[in-house]
């Protein structure tokens, strides 16, 4: 029996960089899981941004977050990229995020694509940042062949950040 859960590619940053791209994603799996242990090369934080294929408009999301004092839910539409969780900045010496993104039925050519996002960042001093869950919509019926990860506010992705893409096969 073929393996159900297979690493497709991984990237650990040896130096800060603007973005990480997984390209030529094989179309042979059912779902994709992207695991990010991320940090922003800015002082406080930045926010994960993803670009799927060549889609640059029409992303939408519904999110639920807790910041340690209040719960918040919101919705955004007509965005230029998939916007998700917080990446701790360099003020927080050794904190990286713990994020998973589940791209469901990514290779189908019939439906828009949905992503379940689960993002976590905590800083040592004050329990700052948040825990975040989000359902995102990528407005393309094309199979996902490329995912580019960057930041929403322009900070580089910091040294030591890791990005791993897994394929899950239903049968």
């Amino acid at each position, binding site marked *: 029996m073929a393996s159900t*859960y297979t*690493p497709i590619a991984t990237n650990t940053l040896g130096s800060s960089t603007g973005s990480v791209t997984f390209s030529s994603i094989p179309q042979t799996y059912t779902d994709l899981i992207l695991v990010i242990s991320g940090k922003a090369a800015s002082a406080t934080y930045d926010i994960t941004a993803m670009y799927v294929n060549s889609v640059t408009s029409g992303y939408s999301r519904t999110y639920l977050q*807790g910041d340690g004092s209040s719960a918040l839910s919101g919705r955004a539409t007509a965005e230029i990229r998939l916007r998700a969780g917080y990446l701790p900045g360099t003020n927080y010496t050794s904190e990286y*995020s713990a994020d998973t993104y589940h791209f469901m039925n990514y290779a189908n050519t019939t439906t828009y694509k949905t992503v379940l996002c689960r993002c*976590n960042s*905590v800083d040592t001093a004050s329990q700052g940042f948040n825990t975040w869950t989000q359902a995102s919509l990528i407005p393309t019926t094309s199979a996902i062949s490329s995912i580019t990860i960057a930041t929403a506010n322009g900070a580089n992705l910091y040294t030591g950040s890791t990005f791993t893409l897994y394929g899950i096969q239903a049968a």
Partner: protein
Amino acid sequence: MGTTYKLISSVTVGAGGAASMSFTSIPSTYTDLHLVFSARCSVAAVNSGVDISLNGSSTSFSYIQLYGTGSSAGSNGASTNDGGGGANGSTSTASTFASSSIYLPNYAGSANKSYSVDYVVENNATATSTTLQAGLWSNTSAINQVTLTPNAGTFDQYSTAYLYGIKNS
């Protein structure tokens, strides 16, 4: 290529219960750890939090959580190690065990250890909850031991925990 997602070890609580469920001598050969557990405990309450200790340490933890109770949602946090999932208590619906999932990416790396916790404590009545947690252990050591302990009481018989290793190549 070896197996990507592999069971490292499991614990099943026997008759008489157990003070904790522990995994020791965790190999450092994986990329991430995924701990999944089903738990009920002896405390006279509907639910109980679960403490997580890493490498035998219960210090240098902090967490933020987001929860829903079926009637309200809220968020809080603390600089303690009790953000490690949940367990049904003895006054909850019989035969009902909470489900928790803890994901620890880069558990053997040299940064502080961030982790994600999702859990539900179901009860066919009031006082249930679903909770998301962001956790941090401010320690750069590779994780070689994970211990789960109920905030109060002991784990009941039939509580289980499974530790999986995930390899990125």
